[in-house]
């Protein structure tokens, strides 16, 4: 049918334009069983399409794993491993070391191009149960990328809170009720934590800003060492917005600066990579997600104010750090 590319070069794909990017021959197949409108697969497609290199991919137990590798089908046109909930990072780290050993021993021709090692995990797997494993991998400096698909809950099991769940969100284990406004703890700052591990590159991305994401993924692939990518994943099922609004909600997340897009290089150079032309009020972002609807009761109005203050403070902090070049 179409011409493809007889012998694509290894390495990163061309992203001069979306049209150029769209010539990618995808390695993530359809007919997985993720929810209609799921942002996970948009993110995965963007990540996988960013490179022409051979891939070894891992995933933690969670929506992505369960829905793309349910026997007897696989949606992955590349090698892929799932072990358990905590350890997609360590699985990929083990594969990365196996690759080093086998090349050193000559069992793999060391002149063949190096594959890329990528582990995916949800926020539950990354921020909570797999935190130690992720930390260990980063401390050991494996040459791998870890992408957290952050939908701010344990989505696969019905929407329980994780340490990524933001204040005021109603999750099934921190539900809004007559005596509670939902989640009481602030969202954990994984990006700062992973940057503090000495990672050469950490970044926050969002699938609606595809060029920003793909650029960062490619930077990550080029970096030497463990790379952490926090990918905002707007979850229609758990954030409870209509299935066609995923990109719209994502736009509000990035434009309200609730999910600021930035990168930290070598732990000390912070760059803001997206500055919205029109900053959307946080209240509008909260307003399109029924998981926050109880915040609009008069007695909870102060929480929305606090939200705006927090987001403003974070934005201020990011700008100051960028300016100070630390």
């Amino acid at each position, binding site marked *: 049918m179409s011409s493809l590319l007889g012998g694509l070069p290894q390495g990163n794909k061309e992203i001069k334009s979306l049209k150029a990017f769209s010539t990618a021959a995808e390695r993530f197949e359809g007919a997985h069983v993720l929810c209609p409108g799921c942002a996970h697969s948009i993110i995965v497609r963007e990540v996988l399409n960013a490179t022409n290199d051979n891939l070894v991919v891992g995933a933690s137990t969670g929506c992505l794993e369960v829905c793309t*590798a349910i026997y007897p089908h696989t949606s992955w046109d590349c*090698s892929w491993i*799932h072990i358990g909930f*905590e350890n997609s990072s360590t699985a990929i*780290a083990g594969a990365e070391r196996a690759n080093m*050993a086998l090349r*050193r021993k000559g069992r793999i021709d060391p002149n063949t191009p190096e594959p890329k090692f990528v582990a995916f995990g949800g926020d539950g797997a990354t921020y909570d149960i797999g935190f130690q494993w992720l930390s260990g991998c980063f401390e050991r400096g494996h040459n791998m990328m870890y992408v957290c698909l952050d939908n701010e809950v344990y989505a696969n099991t019905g929407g329980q809170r994780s340490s990524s769940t933001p204040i005021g969100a109603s999750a099934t284990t921190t539900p809004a009720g007559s005596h509670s406004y939902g989640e009481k703890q602030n969202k954990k700052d994984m990006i700062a934590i992973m940057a503090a591990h000495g990672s050469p590159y950490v970044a926050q991305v969002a699938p609606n800003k595809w060029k920003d994401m793909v650029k960062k993924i490619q930077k990550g692939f080029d970096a030497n060492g463990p790379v952490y990518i926090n990918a905002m994943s707007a979850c229609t099922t758990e954030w409870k917005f209509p299935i066609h609004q995923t990109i719209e909600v994502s736009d509000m997340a990035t434009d309200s600066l609730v999910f600021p897009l930035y990168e930290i290089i070598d732990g000390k150079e912070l760059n803001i990579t997206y500055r919205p032309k029109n900053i959307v009020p946080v209240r509008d972002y909260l307003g399109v997600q029924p998981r926050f609807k109880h915040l609009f009761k008069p007695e909870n109005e102060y929480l929305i104010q606090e939200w705006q203050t927090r987001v403003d403070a974070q934005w201020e902090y990011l700008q100051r750090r960028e300016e100070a070049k630390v």
Partner: protein
Amino acid sequence: MAREKAKRGKVSMYRNKRQMELNSVEVWDGNFANSHALRQASVDVVSAYPITPSTGTVEGYAAHNANGYVDGEMIMTESEHAAMSGCIGASAAGARAATATSSQGLALMVETLYQASGMRLPIVLCMINRALAAPLNVNGDHSDMYLANQSGWISIDACTPEESYDLVLCAFRIGEHLDVRLPVIVNQDGFLTSHKAQNVRPLSDDQAYDFVGDYKEVNSMLNFDKPVTHGVQTESDWHFEHKAKQNAAMMASPKVIEEVFEEYAKISGRKYNMIETYKTEDADIIIVCLGTTYQTAQVAADKMREEGVKAGVLMPRVFRPTQLDMLAEKLKGAKAVVCMDRSAPGGQTGLLYQDVAAALFNTSARPLLSNIVYGLGGRDINIENLKSIYTHAKAEVDAGKLDGAIQRFVGVRGPELKYYSVEG
């Protein structure tokens, strides 16, 4: 086996390049012996975490690595669960992988044990048996071996450093065999074996690697000509078939184990068996036990024989898979069989007792069958203790019945503990 030979026709290529000259007799403790076996097997990835008393295996290997004797990779992970996770990732990527642990570490990695065996990855685990907390205890008993007993790993027991060295080398051959493809645990008693230096007659580096051979990859993630998805979810429509297939491989493994033991005997002069026995052919009273107790019991049995009691000892060298027919065959002539389990029973009879009872029930043999819980947390069991156990069993034989109960706790201070009473 013919297919095996054909594939290994070539000279094995991927041994560690820097070799060590070893003496014909070395004096190694169990941990250090393990570290040499791992080095000689040219493991590609050792992913490990330290825990007493298995730390020595990892430290010994780390020293070999630091001195240039290891061409593979060593990952010092941040926990035992991560250690086994790293082994799984490496193995699925086509590498020979191994690690070592004990007790709490084994308990922490139990989840990954099931994952490794379910994924049919031939990882080797050097297990130095240690009691499980609580209370916390670093000494040797078999509670960790027992914890892993249903994990789908082949489980082999060693009594001495030399046995552990031998069996670790065999473990790679057994697990990696294309008809098996299962992970293997090689056990040894914590401190009693791991920290006791004894004579070991090692193979040379070349002999050992020629025996173990090059690693055969199956469904490797680094084979980009055949991308593979590992670790899928199987629901009620598929899970049973996969577990059945896994179990079938486990049940078929004795054939391979025996072939490997035969081959190893030719090279080393040391022959291992699925079930080890000592003077059981004509024995009236047989003790069934694991680990160093097996050796002590042999001395006790000889002393009993001097006193006119026909005593014997049996040890399942291969603890899992269980060999019911073989057990029955070797025990059927006894008048009394005493199964000694070195693990806190948790409100049941011990696993050795259960295996033997299962073996004998469908035969006409009805020896007096009793269960002793002993040696927990490294509580010593010596020749005199074992002699009294034989004597007690002899009295039961003379009386024609068990002394009131199936299970006794032996060697614990305080009132006597007996469970599962039988009618007089």
